[in-house]
């Protein structure tokens, strides 16, 4: 199994070509993608992305039954390491599919049973993410193409209450009640979250089932949220995801591995030193995870013309550049005035309202779109027009919810033009424990 994509993906514009070079050097793949490194254009992409470059057929054996399954290399075979000081699926490259499962612990799941559950689930995740069937997996062929599968666990208050309450971070509680919220219990709360992400919906579905098979003795399913971005091969790796309003969503994210990201997500280091918060991780290599289900009224959004849509967010739809810039990552100029003397980026634009002068007041977003069966027109929730039921599974990781997330959410809840077309309908907060080594399991510190 290769897992060269992690290093490659940290260099957004070189991910694809670098992969080609690496594989080419190893003699696995011919020169196909090497050419793309020379000049990235539609023509050269079309010429070099011939079938086979991303899908060299390889035979793998996913488990004990000794069956051979033919999958594609590298996009099928790519793996992200499971074991390590931090859990995968937080700041590792984002995949095409994400499933979020909220669990409610059964009453008789005490600390000892909880520990048993986490051992089982850790073992499942460790195997499945590396392209191997789970232990006693009857359908191990479904695990054959891990396609960057990751499984990430988060704990709610109840886990701490049943194990080591003194370790519970102060921010681990429901977010403040916001006027904009219309929270549905079907997407709110939960004692444990399992985040399953991958580029192959088949291996994601299998992981979900295997994990839930092993969880069912200990917990019941509180909610499930299925999300997606773009398929991996359709856009360059590390392309910022696009939501169903057509907006590029997540531009402001700290670059994984950067000093800023280390501080924002993991509470490590001082960033550039200009932040004002006292950020302390609840546990070394732990972080927090906020999941908000945001219903988006795409049908009323249609009523706006493009320039109005861009004004609401403060960015152009095409490139995601701020209205005062040319490129996605250009710094917005909040002082710039338009011809009529009004700010180019309006006072209530999402971009302006979300922005903080304090670099510590930030989060790492890792969101997925959802697109469900349309509900009956006239349903009380926004976005349910009989045509669409779409939205965003907004997922944010940060060291400290109270200090980093809530101030931003407060501002957006108070005033954000985008609120006219969006409604938060689900909300949950979890503490993400560190990763583990092969002789350990996720969450082990809570059972020490």
């Amino acid at each position: 199994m290769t897992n060269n994509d992690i290093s490659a993906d940290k260099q957004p514009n070189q991910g694809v070509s670098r992969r080609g070079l690496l594989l080419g050097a190893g003699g696995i793949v011919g020169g196909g993608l090497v050419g793309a490194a020379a000049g990235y254009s539609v023509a050269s992409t079309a010429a070099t992305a011939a079938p086979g470059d991303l899908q060299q057929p390889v035979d793998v054996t996913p488990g004990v039954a000794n069956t051979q399954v033919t999958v594609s290399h590298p996009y099928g075979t790519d793996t992200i390491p499971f074991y390590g000081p931090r859990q995968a699926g937080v700041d590792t490259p984002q995949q095409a599919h994400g499933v979020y499962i909220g669990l409610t612990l059964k009453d008789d799941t005490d600390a000892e049973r909880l520990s048993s559950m986490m051992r089982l689930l850790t073992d499942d995740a460790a195997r499945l993410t590396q392209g191997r069937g789970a232990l006693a997996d009857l359908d191990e062929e479904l695990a054959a193409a891990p396609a960057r599968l990751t499984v990430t666990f988060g704990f709610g208050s109840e886990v701490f209450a049943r194990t080591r309450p003194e370790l519970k971070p102060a921010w681990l509680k429901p977010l403040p009640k916001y006027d904009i919220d219309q929270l549905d219990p079907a997407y709110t709360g939960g004692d444990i979250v399992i985040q399953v992400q991958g580029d192959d919906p088949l291996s994601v579905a299998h992981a979900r089932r295997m994990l839930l098979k092993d969880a069912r003795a200990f917990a019941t399913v509180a909610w499930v949220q299925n999300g997606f971005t773009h398929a991996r091969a359709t856009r360059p790796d590390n392309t910022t995801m696009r939501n169903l309003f057509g907006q590029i969503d997540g531009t402001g994210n700290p670059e994984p591995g950067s000093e800023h990201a280390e501080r924002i997500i993991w509470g490590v280091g001082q960033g550039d030193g200009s932040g004002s918060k006292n950020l302390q991780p609840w546990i070394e290599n732990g972080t927090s995870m906020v999941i908000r289900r945001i219903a988006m009224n795409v049908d009323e959004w249609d009523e706006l013309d493009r320039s109005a849509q861009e004004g609401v967010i403060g960015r152009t739809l095409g490139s995601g550049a701020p209205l005062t810039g040319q490129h996605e990552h250009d710094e917005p100029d909040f002082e710039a005035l338009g011809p009529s003397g009004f700010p180019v980026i309006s006072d209530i634009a999402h971009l302006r309202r979300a922005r903080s002068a304090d670099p510590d007041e930030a989060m790492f977003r890792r969101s997925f779109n959802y697109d469900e069966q349309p509900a009956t027109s006239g349903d009380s929730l926004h976005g349910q027009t009989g045509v669409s039921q779409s939205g965003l599974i907004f997922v944010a990781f940060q060291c400290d919810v109270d200090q980093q997330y809530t101030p931003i959410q407060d501002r957006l809840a108070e005033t954000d033009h985008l609120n006219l077309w969006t409604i938060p309908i689900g909300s949950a907060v979890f503490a993400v424990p560190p990763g583990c080594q092969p002789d350990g399991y996720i969450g082990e510190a809570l059972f020490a």
Partner: protein
Amino acid sequence: MNTTRHFIITSALAGLVLAGCGTADSAETTRDHAEDGEFFSVEDPWIKATEESLDTSSDHSMTGAFVHLTNVSGEDQTIIGADAEIAEVVELHEVVDDGGVNLMQEKEGGFPVAADERYELNPGQDHIMLMDLTDDVNPGDRIEVTLELANGETQVIDFVAKEYVGAQENYGDLEHDHGDDAEHDHTH
């Protein structure tokens, strides 16, 4: 069940038989997950939990344990028996095809494992049978089973309990299809 210790597979383990999978050596792909022991390196040890969250007709009085062993002792070994605190009776079983009916029975001579060879205990194949259990086996429990070798030595293996329900819930159709008599309930 007859006096020669042949076992008609009952509901508890029928699923394991249905799950039967190939015996071919897959050591190459999975050996790196193995844990070394004195005589055998041990890979994927698990035992079927008797306590299940689904409403099944599982038999709480017995269960099966499975593992992939590789003989790392440098000489041929034979596993002639096994012992576990949680069971009054532990036997080494094989599954044989008796005229279309899978029968579990104690394996004559135990499990021979030549030096450097791999030996798989899988559902539907050779396995360790634990009977007259003295305790529940809950999912996630770790159950110690001691392998007894012909040379008088032993090796202890830690088996993790997994829920494994197979297709035992309803055999009405199979029963009908096979036209078996009552004694052959739940067999396949």
